């Protein structure tokens, strides 16, 4: 079975630009969560979606937004990129919002 997939693998953007990251969950999983992992730190929770609805949001500014589609895939959008947004963005999927989360390989975002 395919695991969680994320695209793109790597991305380089300039300050002030916008970025969209994509995630496809494990087949049968209906919940997707997004995490930001800055180099040398543990992942930090950004969002959780279930059945296309936001179920939780971490302490991130409104520049961060997400959505989930009818096929349970998800997008994370970040506007007005800052240098500090450079990180590995991880997507995790789970059967439901309270179940074990399985992580994808992440998208490495570099903001210059």
């Amino acid at each position, binding site marked *: 079975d395919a695991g969680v997939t994320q695209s793109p693998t790597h991305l380089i953007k300039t300050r002030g630009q916008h970025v969209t990251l994509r995630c496809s969950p494990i087949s049968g999983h209906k919940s997707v969560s997004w995490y930001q992992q800055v180099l040398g730190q543990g992942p930090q929770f950004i969002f959780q979606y279930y059945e296309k609805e936001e179920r939780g949001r971490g*302490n991130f500014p409104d520049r961060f937004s997400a959505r989930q589609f009818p096929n349970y895939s998800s997008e994370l959008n970040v506007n007005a990129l800052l240098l500090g947004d450079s990180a590995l963005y991880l997507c995790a999927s789970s059967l439901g919002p309270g179940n074990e989360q399985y992580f994808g390989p992440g998208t490495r975002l570099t903001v210059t």
Partner: protein
Amino acid sequence: QQQVKQSPQSLIVQKGGISIINCAYENTAFDYFPWYQQFPGKGPALLIAIRPDVSEKKEGRFTISFNKSAKQFSLHIMDSQPGDSATYFCAATSLLSGSARQLTFGSGTQLTVLP
């Protein structure tokens, strides 16, 4: 705001030795405590997890010890192997809303097992 404190930051162990990583938490709302293993360029992978009503859980060479009163838990890796060299994260989950749960991670421990 770091709600799960993890130590040590790095750990070097000889092959066959025991690796011990410690975590502590303050939030009594945490109700599930997983450990993740992350290799370079990969996402975290669930290793083993424990609920607070259990004091110890063992899976193969990996054991979690949990002390609810002290709000501490630890991962023991017995007979450590070079292939165990990775970054290990402790984590804790708390309820968001309904049945949604949030994972809060520690800062990670980089384990190196020398051959």
